[in-house]
């Protein structure tokens, strides 16, 4: 009897990603966003961003059920105001150091430190907000990372990066990825990531040199290796059940994607970017394969609601990309 049970739950499940987004629809959203942002003198921007994200999430489906982004313009607008206040506070302190205390070196150092120090806070806030506003079948994602912990770790890794003349930056990047990913939850499903700095460094060194030797041609294969490294290291577990992700993307696939995207964008003076973006999303979801035995009909809600968009906006404000 017990044997039968285990066999039953350990059965391989089907996971099928699909991306339905269409360039024309996305373009229409961009145009409406543009119109509304313009007539509100830019104030609509956070709402525009919410609309855009909601479309992209809503067009992404797993086993024919769509993802949902519940973030609102209001939340992101509040985050945006906080960012502006932070920026003003830093600038005022900078001016005081420069003009009143008259310590120009200290002032510049302060400026760099302030903008640098916000990075781990932004990463934390961004993950926390983005995950909490993402849901699938009514079950929320969540991020359980500890802010103080990632801030401390971040500065430790940055210190190592400095004393190794940058070599450690490969570990810095992968450690952040690992830390953030292993704190992602989807209901009672836990995420993890096996990436490590050494592999990442080798992968990139190889990609770099082969790209130079082949006069750039290898860059598409390098890109596909980076993508595969991101995807292949992702795992999900729920009790005894697990899912392993793998990439099916090839260098040739990236070559076609990027060249066609470039042509679409260039020959339409940039207006075709909506179509290029949708092709990229489709390419990504067509090339992520999940294998395992987690039953996605049996996930339970575990994550609390959370609506602070500070990090989300900080990432956007300083144009840091969350890969």
């Amino acid at each position, binding site marked *: 009897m017990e044997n039968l049970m285990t066999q039953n739950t350990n059965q391989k499940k089907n996971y099928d990603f699909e991306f*339905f987004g269409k360039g*024309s629809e996305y*373009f*229409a*959203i*961009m*145009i*409406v*966003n*543009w*119109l*509304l*942002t*313009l*007539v509100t*003198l*830019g104030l609509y*921007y956070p*709402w*525009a961003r919410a*609309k855009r994200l*909601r479309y992209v999430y*809503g*067009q992404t489906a797993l086993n024919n059920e*769509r993802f*949902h982004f*519940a973030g609102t313009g209001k939340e992101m607008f509040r985050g945006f105001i906080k960012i502006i206040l932070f920026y003003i506070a830093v600038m005022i302190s900078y001016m005081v150091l420069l003009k009143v205390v008259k310590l120009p070196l200290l002032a510049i150092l302060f400026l760099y430190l302030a903008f640098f120090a916000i990075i781990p806070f932004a990463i934390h806030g961004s993950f926390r907000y983005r995950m909490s506003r993402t*849901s*699938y*079948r*009514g*079950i*929320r994602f969540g991020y359980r990372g500890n802010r103080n912990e990632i801030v401390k770790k971040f500065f430790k890794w940055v210190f190592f990066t400095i004393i190794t003349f940058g070599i450690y930056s490969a570990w810095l990047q992968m450690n952040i990825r690992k830390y953030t990913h292993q704190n992602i939850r989807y*209901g009672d499903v836990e995420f993890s990531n096996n990436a490590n700095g050494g592999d990442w460094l080798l992968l990139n060194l190889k990609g770099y040199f082969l790209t130079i030797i082949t006069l750039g041609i290898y860059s598409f294969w390098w890109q596909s290796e980076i993508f595969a490294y991101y995807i292949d290291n992702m795992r999900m577990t729920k009790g005894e059940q697990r899912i392993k992700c793998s990439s099916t993307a090839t260098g040739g696939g990236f070559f076609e994607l990027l060249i066609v995207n470039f042509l679409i*964008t*260039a020959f339409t*003076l*940039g*207006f075709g*970017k909506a179509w290029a973006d949708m092709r990229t999303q489709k390419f990504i979801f067509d090339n992520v394969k999940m294998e395992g035995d987690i039953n*996605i*009909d*049996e*996930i*339970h*809600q575990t994550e609390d*609601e959370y609506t602070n968009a500070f990090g989300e906006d900080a990432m956007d404000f300083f144009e840091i990309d969350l890969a």
Partner: protein
Amino acid sequence: MKNTIDAKYYDGQSSAPLKAIVVLNDRTNEFHLQIAGEISFVWLLKDLQFEQYGHILEVRNTNYSDAILKIDDKYFSEKFYAAMKQNNSIDIHTRLLNLGLSKITAIAVCLLGLIVLAYFYVLPPIAEKTAALLPESFDNEIGNLFMDAFLRKNNIDTTKTKYLEQFAAELDLKNRNPLRFTVVKSKEVNAFALPNGQIVVFSAILENMESFEELVALLGHEASHVNYRHSIKMLCRNLAGYMTVSLIFSDVNGVMALLADNAQRLHSLSYSRGFEQEADEQGLEILMNNKVDPNGMVKLFEQLEKESNIYIPKIISSHPLTKERKDNMHKIISETVYEIKSNDKLNSIFEYIKN
């Protein structure tokens, strides 16, 4: 009545889909739901948010934000949209989107057209008005800032500066505020005026001059830039231009922004040509008022033109179309009655400056 439909329901507790029966009552603006043949409850349309994917309708209730009601029926979807519209529950973004791509694009093109018109016909006068509102202390501050930075990299020729001051003192440059003159040692053929009244002449441009009329022409031209506050007007114009451009392209991609940025730069260049012409004409008037041969201006241009065969000096690159400017000068000179007096004093100071 086909307001009753089968649907799928996710309760926000588990990811398992449940069967639901939905009745839309469009008179009371309510949804009656029966879940899995057991639980029944009512959702008010005013609490609902929805996404439409083709025929598929995903409805969420803001009071229980995790629960999803999923309905796949074209007729019901349309009916629901109409009811929501009647209930004023559809935001402006969705309303615009539902106009269809061609109408949205038409609106966008019209709006863009209006902005472009405003950019060319409304912005310049506003920028000039703004410049007029700025106090002259602002001109001084900006000028001093620039001069300080400039002098850190360049050396003053004190003797020639003294002679140039004497030379300028002999002239009426129609200035309202005091002008200051400085000669810097440089191989570059250049001269410029700052909003604080500081006129900087590079030594190489002096060496190329053959007559004092050319120097009067140069000073007249630069003094006119100061008199008419060209730098400040330019600054206001550029700021306003960049604000417009960044407003238009705030949410659009980099390629377009780059194109627009360059267009803006080109436009400001042609605008600066307008200023150059004004300075030429006012400079010419200064020549005539001081009873100096106005052809000095033409000679100055010719000197600069010659120099440009060797390498392109800044004064020409930012003052293009020399031929056009020369023709303009010839035209004005031929149309104006003027008097020339020989001026030994200017001539002798000029000799000192040259040597």
